């Protein structure tokens, strides 16, 4: 075996046989796929923008603020999330709630997603279940740092993800990214 290996040729030929077999097997699968056999896949590629891998239900994606029935935020501006946030990306300004049974309401609730580390502590810390990370939205971006700051109004408008983690609300695009 040692002598045979020194001549490369046998080893090279076995390697070529392996890759050629792989080539023709995959080629056959591609052709079968093109002819209508959908389960025959010659490649493991998922063609991303058109084709998506389902997200895990536990995935932490873009935050949203949960609404009450009247549409106002469920958040009571207790500052728990702002306090627990390791990245210090949440900024809350509290205000009086018109309803005397509810203590406070956030006048401002900004999340700087350029700083956020998606640890999910804010969701865990919230006593009112007012913030969740279940929108399924991952593709948000901006040309500026300011564009990464998402305000209360934006976060309130988001809906939870559908089956397979598909986002149901459109990706909030910051003003500086509009063409």
């Amino acid at each position, binding site marked *: 075996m040692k002598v045979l290996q020194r001549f490369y*040729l046998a080893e*090279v030929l076995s*390697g*070529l046989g*392996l*890759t*050629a077999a*792989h*080539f023709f097997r*995959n*080629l056959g699968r*591609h052709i079968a796929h093109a002819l209508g056999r959908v389960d025959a896949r*010659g*490649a*493991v*590629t998922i*063609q991303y923008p058109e084709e998506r891998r389902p997200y895990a239900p536990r995935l932490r994606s873009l935050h949203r603020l949960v609404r009450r029935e009247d549409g106002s935020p469920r958040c009571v501006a207790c500052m728990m999330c702002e306090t627990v946030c390791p990245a210090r990306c949440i900024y809350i300004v509290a205000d009086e709630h018109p309803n005397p049974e509810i203590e406070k309401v956030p006048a401002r609730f900004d999340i700087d997603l350029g700083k956020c580390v998606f640890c999910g502590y804010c969701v865990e810390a919230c006593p009112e279940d007012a913030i969740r990370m279940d929108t399924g939205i991952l593709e948000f971006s901006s040309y500026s740092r300011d564009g990464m700051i998402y305000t209360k109004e934006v976060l309130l408008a988001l809906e939870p993800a559908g089956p397979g983690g598909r986002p149901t609300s459109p990706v909030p695009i910051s003003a500086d990214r509009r063409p």
Partner: protein
Amino acid sequence: MIGDLSIAFGRVAFVMLFVLNLGGLLTWVERKQSAIMQDRIGANRASILGFRLLGLFHPLADAIKMLTKEDFRPARADRFLFGLAPFVSVFCALVAFASIPFGDVLRVAGREIPLQAVTLNVGILYVFAMLSLGVYGVMMAGWSSANNFALLGGQRAAALMISAEVAIGASIMGIVMIGGSLNMQDIVRVQGHLFWGWLPAWGIVTQPLAFILFLTAGIAATKRIPFDTPEGESEIIGYFIEYSGMKFGMFAMADFLETVVIAGMTTSLFLGGWQVPYLVAEGFRFPWGGAVALPHLLVVLLQVGAFVSKVCATIFFMMLVRWTLPRFRYDQAMRLGWLGLFPLSVLNIVLTGIGLLLWGGPA
């Protein structure tokens, strides 16, 4: 007069378009073939009016990209040689195919047209010389870039080229001895003989050792993996490190054109060129007694088709090698060339000589 001129022009144009188009297509073949081998899909995004056509528009898109990119020249580069180098590379690779026959004689309206761009008595030496000249472009590029890595790449290319060319030259000697001619058309004709009435006397049958040696050295001459020490993507970027835009594209194209030329040479010398087994000038004549008469034009078409498909199969094999084997280290490539391929090809010459003495020539 006009007829002769147009025939000569047509022969040259056919070879030129064949080599150029195949070379351009090879960028697509390379990407797709490697993708399919590696469970991927490969380039498929370029589209015209929504038609993607399996990514066949990518070579076009690449060409447009390269033509519109900035043509950058380093401040201390040698202006003249820096510009000349890619042209030398492409030119030598392009003209090398000229004396490779792509078919037998075509008889039309009383004329006999040899299907070969240029009929040369020293055809093999010509192809060979042009392939070797190609390294001048590489060396010029390496030297004129005023970049140490480019210079290293150029030197490596020169060293690799010499070791490969010696092995190529020595390994085809056996074929030349059997064919008794340096004219590639004659060599292909000799391969039309049959041993024992059924085995075609292709070079791969008469010279199996030379076939392996030639193909190895030929892949080395194209400067592609596993012999891409002049480029060495992961260590020195190579002789074209300072090139951008279409000049870089021309170096890449020269590599593909050389692949086509080596495949054409392999086909002509070892795979019977345009020969179709059992096809003679009048039609098929099978060893088991059957015969099918065919018109002359169809025979010629079959022969040209056989040549093209053999070239394509050889290119497929070379691509397979390129996407299977890792790169030889520089010293390993040198050792393989000088201590492996060269002595074995000399041995092959001796063996061929003894064989010819014992059994006489095939003709």
